């Protein structure tokens, strides 16, 4: 199985390639969730948003022939699901965690329903930029075939970091997340801020989904996302609501998720399923290490129900 010339180097290379390729959905979902959570609300439904995004992107790309329209459709679908989440949460006495669970089930179910006719046809996929042209080794070239969405995501992380610190919108979102009363005292509607933050979060998560169906793995089926959305939500918690840390964490997760397929490609097939579960085990392990029952997490928005 292994390529003779580079042998076991295939594994770290595939992990590196995976870190770039597999991390993109993690990155988009976690950045989106970061915005939502900074405004003081948690959206666990992004798992459903991811799957809906993947389905709608594939469908629109198939119907129109333009994968970029698919990406846009995925974003809009995600924003609509976000609006639904925020709309229900703004009713009195409704719990945002529970609504997230409901939308997780709803989004997945709806995507499977609408996506039934899309399993067979092939839709145009997103193009990749070949950054590995300088190398003769096919594995290196494969690892460095990078999608534009990844670059957008990477650029988005510092932009968000900057926006949270310095822009008016960033400040408003943080105020709503730290103290709803303060935001109200300033004359802003907390519900409106959170609605927008959840919609933007859903938009980004939808785009993350479009990457799944239009680039990697690059097809639509019902097993496309198994927990990437929820892993990304957990990732935000130990990235301490910091967009830059979200980027590093996503890369680490992409690498972990690529470990199983990478080992399989060199012939290590035993434990394939366990290696596939690596991102979940890693998430749990990091949460165990970094959380503490005695203090609230540093950087946690004070209004966030999940950390109280």
């Amino acid at each position, binding site marked *: 199985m292994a390529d003779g010339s580079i042998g076991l180097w295939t594994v770290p290379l595939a992990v590196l390639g995976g870190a770039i390729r597999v991390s993109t959905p993690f990155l988009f979902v976690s950045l989106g969730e970061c915005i939502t959570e900074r405004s003081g609300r948690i959206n666990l439904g992004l798992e459903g948003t991811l799957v809906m995004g993947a389905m709608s992107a594939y469908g629109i790309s198939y119907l129109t022939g333009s994968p970029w329209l698919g990406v846009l459709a995925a974003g809009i679908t995600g924003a609509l699901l976000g609006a639904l989440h925020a709309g229900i949460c703004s009713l009195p006495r409704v719990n945002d965690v*529970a609504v997230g669970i409901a939308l997780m*089930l709803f*989004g997945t*179910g709806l995507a499977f329903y609408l996506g*039934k006719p899309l399993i067979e046809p092939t839709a145009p996929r997103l193009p990749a930029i070949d950054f590995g042209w300088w190398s003769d080794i096919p594995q290196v070239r494969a690892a460095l075939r990078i999608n534009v969405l990844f670059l957008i995501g990477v650029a988005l992380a510092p932009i968000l970091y900057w926006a949270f610190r310095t822009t008016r919108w960033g400040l408003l979102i943080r105020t709503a997340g730290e103290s709803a009363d303060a935001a109200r005292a300033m004359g802003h509607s907390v519900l409106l801020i959170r609605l927008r933050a959840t919609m933007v979060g859903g938009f980004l998560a939808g785009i993350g989904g479009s990457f799944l169906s239009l680039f990697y793995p690059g097809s639509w089926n019902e097993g496309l996302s198994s927990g990437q959305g929820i892993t990304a939500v957990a990732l935000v918690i130990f990235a301490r609501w910091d967009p830059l840390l979200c980027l590093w964490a996503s890369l680490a997760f992409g690498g972990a998720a690529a470990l199983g397929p990478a080992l399989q490609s060199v012939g290590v097939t035993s434990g394939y399923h366990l290696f596939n*579960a690596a991102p*979940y085990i890693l998430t749990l392990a990091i949460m165990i290490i970094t959380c503490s029952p*005695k203090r609230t997490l540093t950087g946690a928005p004070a209004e966030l*129900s*999940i950390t109280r």
Partner: protein
Amino acid sequence: MTAEAADSTDAVGTVAPAADPGFLQRHGGTIEYVLIPGAALVGALAVFGIFVAMFGKNPLDLYFYMYYGAFGTWFSWQNTLTRAAPLILTALCTALPAQLGMVIIGGEGALLIGALSATSAALALQGLPPFVVQVAMVCAGVIGGGLWIMLSGGLRQYRGVNETISSLLLVYIALAILNHLVEGLMRDPASLNKPSTREIGAANMIGSIPGTDVHWGLVFGLIAAIAAYILIYHTVFGFAARVAGGNIRAAKIVGLGVSKLILTVCFLAGGAAGLAGMVEVAAVQGRTNANLAAGYGFTGILVAFLARQNPLAIIPVAILLGGISASGGLLQRRLGLPDASVLVLQGIIFVFVLASDALYGRIGFLKGKS
């Protein structure tokens, strides 16, 4: 999440008195608990009807086939009850920790681990009298599932890890362990297309309730739900759990052992879901394979929320949702709807039920959250 749980336990006391004193005042809370989820269900069915109408199907046909496939004939009743059995048990996995203000959504994982443990017990004890094997399977299933959810509870109590996320992550980890064992160590070499463990043996299956095709798992579910109800509402332990769920600081001040409460309740919750896994193995599948991840754990979350985390209310709600999933086959055959339509309907119901939380104590008008 604590606010939600506090609502469900305290609302009986704090609900606004109805206009008509007397009957309504005494029973207004109970009426609300039936009326509001009922209205949410009707609303969800209406929206689902509009949804299928957009795909050119007649909603009236839909409702008829749903009723017919769920409760129309003795055959469909049996199908419904067979599906309700694991739903009652997985719903308890969410409802019991909810008394403590915890949102556990990992019933599916505990079900898989319970199934795996029960199968292992049965395979290890081949040759012993069936009754011994069955008792061992029940114990193994309950302990396996119980420890699995107790892990989430322990992580929450000792490490401050959010139990909603950890229990969901554990579902994926449980599925990976199951696939790993079923395709490796525990694989029956004869199972080629669908990797499975060896069969537990026909003699060790728990069989059907006499006169029906409904397996004994339904009785397990009923007993578990009633026991859970008694535990929560009629024992000191349950009272302590509800106090801790309402106000954790008050519970600590009066000297309740919160850690012990959390671990015990999580163990019982996971044990119920693990029992569901055992039932699915010992009454339906006869072996462990990936078929067990049929989503009972996730539907159980919806059952628990629709029943407002009340163990007794879980029984009729589980039968209702068992009926919805039982009618899925008929909807596919007669109306040509995709099999995921049941999931869509469940999702819509869930959304409506949660949105209806806003109505308690204030039927008639909605106010913006201050």
